[in-house]
């Protein structure tokens, strides 16, 4: 790996999040300077800032892109207790010439009474839905029923998680076999308050999200979680950033066909890495979930590659023969780390 280029970000305060759009041609950054910037990749591969505007009246924690099927849409969340949805307007021709784009605020979601800590769009097969979670422990799911009118968002679900929420992740699986599912993590540092990762699933009958699992073994503060792309597997893989990096496998147990109750899962930890030595703050999978990246207190970003993980199902079946010759790229990692001048 090598540093291909460095981009002068020009934010006046800490950057909190960088988010790539679906095709990797655009990038959004957000900062404690209360602004969001949008960057576009030019033909020559340079990143040019095409929009920069004040979005909130507090630090902006996260910024995220909607799927391009819904147009050019961003969502941001902030310390100012709100989340906002932004849409790019195809501008005047002279704006285009100057390489600028216009973003206008379509809605401000003001239901939270505390800092909104994470914002995520739901998988696109569910429609245009936006989820927020907040420090007061509430997950909110909003829906834009008319994708051509992004100023109309209705609050569809309000789920109280009882613990201060720090992060959410949707299960990207669009398989009919899997009901819509998301995981929420809590940064509550009190071990006594129990498991810090809760899994919720949509129940067709009650038309509500119900808690189906709490990962009881994760009792330390959780800072980030990420479901892996599904790859057509029957089970789900969830990465967690807590005092270490953990990867869980959630295998739905076979249900009685008549049963309408919540799904049950066989939960299994498949990896645990303490190489960051202390708190881990972010985890994220690449497109095909062959690499997991994590960032921690050691100032490193570490990339994890697990052949075992990717092929977990097969390996499980053939367990007796695992672990001899084939260690090829079994698990190797690549560090990125700071150089201190």
């Amino acid at each position, binding site marked *: 790996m090598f*540093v291909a280029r460095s981009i002068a970000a020009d934010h006046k305060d800490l950057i909190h999040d*960088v988010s790539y759009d679906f095709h990797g041609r655009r990038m959004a950054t957000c900062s404690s300077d209360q602004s969001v910037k949008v960057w576009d990749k030019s033909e020559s591969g340079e990143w040019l800032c095409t929009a920069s505007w004040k979005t909130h009246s507090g630090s902006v924690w996260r910024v995220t892109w909607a799927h391009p099927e819904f147009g050019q849409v961003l969502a941001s969340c902030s310390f100012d207790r709100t989340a906002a949805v932004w849409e790019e307007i195809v501008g005047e021709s002279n704006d285009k010439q100057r390489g600028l784009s216009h973003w206008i605020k379509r809605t401000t979601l003001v239901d939270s009474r505390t800092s909104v800590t994470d914002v995520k769009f739901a998988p696109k097969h569910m429609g245009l839905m936006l989820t927020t979670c907040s420090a007061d422990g509430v997950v909110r799911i909003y829906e834009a029923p008319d994708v051509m009118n992004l100023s109309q968002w209705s609050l569809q679900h309000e789920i109280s998680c009882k613990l201060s929420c720090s992060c959410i992740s949707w299960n990207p699986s669009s398989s009919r076999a899997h009901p819509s599912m998301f995981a929420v993590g809590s940064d509550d540092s009190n071990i006594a308050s129990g498991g810090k990762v809760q899994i919720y699933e949509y129940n067709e009958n009650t038309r509500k999200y119900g808690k189906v699992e709490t990962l009881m073994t994760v009792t330390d503060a959780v800072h980030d979680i990420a479901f892996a792309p599904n*790859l057509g597997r029957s089970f789900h893989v969830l990465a967690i950033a807590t005092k270490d990096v953990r990867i869980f496998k959630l295998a739905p147990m076979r249900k009685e066909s008549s049963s309408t109750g919540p799904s049950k899962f066989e939960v299994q930890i498949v990896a645990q890495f303490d190489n960051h030595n202390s708190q881990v703050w972010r985890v994220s999978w690449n497109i095909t979930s062959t690499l997991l990246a994590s960032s921690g207190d050691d100032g490193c970003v570490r990339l994890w590659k697990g052949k075992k993980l990717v092929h977990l199902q097969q390996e499980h079946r*053939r367990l007796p023969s695992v672990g001899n010759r084939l260690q090829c790229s079994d698990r190797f990692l690549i560090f*990125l780390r700071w150089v201190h001048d």
Partner: protein
Amino acid sequence: MEEVDVEPTITNIPALRRGKHMGFAWGQGNIFVYETLFKATGATGSGSPFIHEVRKDEDIYSPILRKLFNESHHIFVGLQTIREDLPSKNKKPQFVSISKNYRSVIRACMEELQQVAVSTKNAEMSVQYGNQVSILLAIELIWNLCEVLFIDAAPAGSLLLHLLDWVRLHKADVDEKARDVLQSDSPAEHRDYWDVVVSYVLQGRLDEARQMLGKKATLTPAANNIYKMMDNLLSKMPFYNPGGTQTLTEFDVKWRHWHEEVDRCLQDNSFASNQHLEVICKILLGDEDTLLEHKDLLGTWYHFLVSRLLFCHPTVKPTELHYYAQSCMTMFLDSRSAPEPLDSILLAAFEFDIHQVIKDCSIALNNWWFVAHLTDLLDHCKLLQSHNLHFGSNLREFLLLEYASGLFTHHSLWQLAVDYFDHCLEFGRVYLELQIERVPLDTERKALKVLRICEQRQMSEQVRSICKIMAMRALRNNRLGSALSWSIRAKDAAFATLISERFLQDYCAKGTFSDLDLIDNLGPAMLLSDRLTFLGKYREFHKLYGEKRFKEAAKLLLSLMTAKIAPRSFWMTLLTDALPLLEQKEVIFSADQTYELMFCLEELTSSLNTPSSDSDKSMQEEDVELTKVELLRLALSRNLAMAIVKEGTVET
């Protein structure tokens, strides 16, 4: 609980301050990192000056290596089509030729790189090209050895001949030196003369060695005898001929006789008067110490190995190789210097440990091209299964997926990756689905290209999504025609309705339709949404009208209302369209049709008259509306009168 194969590579990121965190975001084939602080809530600090883009595969961006990717892709696809049902004996020559094709692509790239490395004026680039050349050299060296040992699987006798070819190909500096010597004024006096002779002997190129020796012999007639004797020994050295009638045992007997003869010459001190010839004599006897004294000419331990086999064990069996390889490596390398990755890889090959070769290459090369293609070829040769029944096919697929995923990050190479994914039965399709929808759809042409790939593979969800993205983009840019055709492809009824609505609004405002071609040729696609059907039919009405096919036009217009195809909001427009038809000299709407039109008008006006609906309309607008209704009523009743008269006349 987790063990790590190798120490990870560390990439340093230039930054300023200690005690900060590094944030990151995944891109495609790259990762963005930036300085941040995750801990504090509502944290403020000084700004983060830079975002760094970190890339994985730099090879992909080299224009010369791109040729390697392109050409090996053809070979790969060809290999996949070799029929499974052929007996493996018949397939072997094909596999060997495919292996050679791969190697010749590597060689071609290497030569091209070598040229630019020399010709470039940029010192940094020159070093970079030089590095790439040495990597390709190593790759070709390993591949060639794997070809000899695993794919060709030469038996005893032929094995040594192949190994000799291998060494000759990769230790070509002898030829350069020989050229220098021969081109000098007096070759036999050249300071490299003996080096060349000895190098030839070490590589078993005895004819060339004899020619060289001949030059010295003519210079020194006094010593003619011993030169003749050496020439005789060299000319008599037997080489196994795999195509001949001689058996390996017969060859072995013959070789031993020759060996004894050489030994006798040494014992007789026949060459005592010429130390160079004596050295050659000792080499012919395979004397280890003498061989090791020529480390600089041998260059590598594996050359030493092959020379030693040539003069000691010409009938070496594949299964014995590992023993000699190990001992040659130990003897050749200083006890101080540890073997380099290349040494271990070659040694593993001599040990016939294919998986170790692949594993070590994956780690050492940081380049999936080589391991992916070699493993695929070895898998086709059915060599992986015999070693490891459970993971054979998976290892191949794992490496191919890695390689192809890397290609997908490149703006044009991604198209090659599609074929690789197609030939990965287990996860290829899922990978392709995940990767292909991320290909940037910069232009309609590119979108169509991506779409075709998805359609050929029945990837309906990706097809739908791409069309939807394109439709949305076209709509945002007010290209209604393009938006409509994309949403028809996406079979997105809601979106088609929305766009049809826009078309009709535009028509109402401007009185003309845009994108006539598209609307005229909707065909069955029209049925996707009611509004689209109406749009298509309404346009058809205009066409009939324009062609003066008034009867048909009138019938269609009426049916649009009576069959409830037209939205109520559009009825007034339709009725207004009927006006010119009603005003024609000839009767066009029959009496029955006129009644129906009147009924439609009444239905519309009665609903319009509900006060709430148009309370916000201005008085003026209302006046216009009223006048229109009055005009219509007048025209309708006049037409009715004419129609009754006409119909009455015809009937009688």
